[in-house]
């Protein structure tokens, strides 16, 4: 395949992902799940091609970048290309990963081309080394309980508020802060 068709394919992919992501921003959970699944496959393919000796960390990084994209989703500006936005987040997280491993030699290499990000996806997830479930268990109750009820069990905010005795806004804040705290815990495990 030559580069022109690659670019056309990447543009189509960008448009497709962007539509799903924007629906997700409007509260469409089905579209949003589809977006994260497809993005995860692209990230996996991309990271496996680039992380020569760290291939076993790839799945951890896929999860970490997906969480970062989720936590930063309110900073996406509709008129910007989505790929550039995701690329900057992935690059930021990957730089952090390499810094922790003192692999400064690799810093210039891995994520230079935003368009590479949406090349061949990899649909076969590996076993993540880090268990996010265990990290979730370490969160304080006012963050853990809203995440367990709303995000894992699929209860509504109102039901969760009744169940936990928290106010509805405390439930929403708990989910939001809990997922940010989860990202901080992931950084702490490096």
């Amino acid at each position: 395949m030559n580069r022109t068709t690659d670019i056309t394919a990447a543009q189509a992919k960008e448009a497709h992902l962007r539509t799903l992501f924007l629906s997700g921003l409007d509260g469409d959970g089905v579209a949003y799940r589809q977006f994260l699944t497809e993005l995860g496959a692209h990230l996996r393919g991309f990271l496996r091609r680039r992380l020569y000796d760290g291939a076993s960390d790839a799945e951890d990084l896929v999860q970490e970048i997906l969480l970062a994209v989720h936590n930063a989703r309110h900073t996406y500006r509709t008129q910007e290309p989505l790929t550039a936005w995701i690329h900057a987040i992935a690059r930021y997280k990957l730089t952090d990963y390499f810094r922790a491993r003192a692999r400064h030699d690799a810093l210039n290499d891995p994520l230079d081309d935003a368009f590479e990000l949406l090349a061949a996806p990899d649909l076969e997830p590996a076993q993540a080394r880090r268990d996010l479930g265990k990290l979730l268990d370490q969160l304080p109750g006012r963050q853990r309980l809203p995440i367990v009820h709303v995000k894992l069990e699929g209860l509504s905010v109102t039901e969760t508020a009744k169940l936990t005795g928290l106010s509805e806004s405390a439930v929403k804040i708990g989910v939001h802060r809990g997922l940010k705290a989860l990202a901080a815990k992931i950084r702490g495990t490096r």
Partner: protein
Amino acid sequence: MKTDDFISLLATGVAPVDRHALTKRFGVAVLVGAAGATLIMAMVLGIRRDLAEVAVTPIFWAKIALPLCVMVGSLWTSTRLARPGVRMGGSSWLIAAPIAAVWLAGAFVLVAAPGDARLALVLGKTWRVCPFNIAMLSIPGFVAVFWALRGLAPTRLVLTGAAGGLLAGSTATLAYCLHCPEMGIPFWGVWYVLGMLVPTIIGAVLGPRLLRW
């Protein structure tokens, strides 16, 4: 946890996202910064007594223009840096241009002045306290701007910290203009710029630690 399960977790129960989150956060930060600096200035330093008289002179508005332009420029820069993948673009020019203009005008004033009066023009009467006062007035804005940035997603942390610090510093300088009696352009070019530089450098140093996400 498997990636598919984690994706389910993220996608379950998603609420519509507020598209104006960034504008709101920065709006609050600038308001808190300006109100806080003005309040501290009025209580600790006092508004200059001849404010009503100088407020009708063009030179007073030229003085206001320096921190105001830097504030608009650093606000624009900070909001761009707070989003992943957005470049600084031309926003840094809006910071550099007013400072360059004041330096140029200050140089003209100094060249035109007699030799023995030049040092007095630069030092004014308050050079010892000016940068310190500006740094003090920038504290509420600094806290508020970093609060705003921590809720967003900057990826260049040193630069973002510096831009945030400059936003706090220029907001403080704007409030300080209501107190400061100095009307010499060379004075602004040295001491106001130094005063704004203090929170800028602190912001650059603290950025990587405070803004990680």
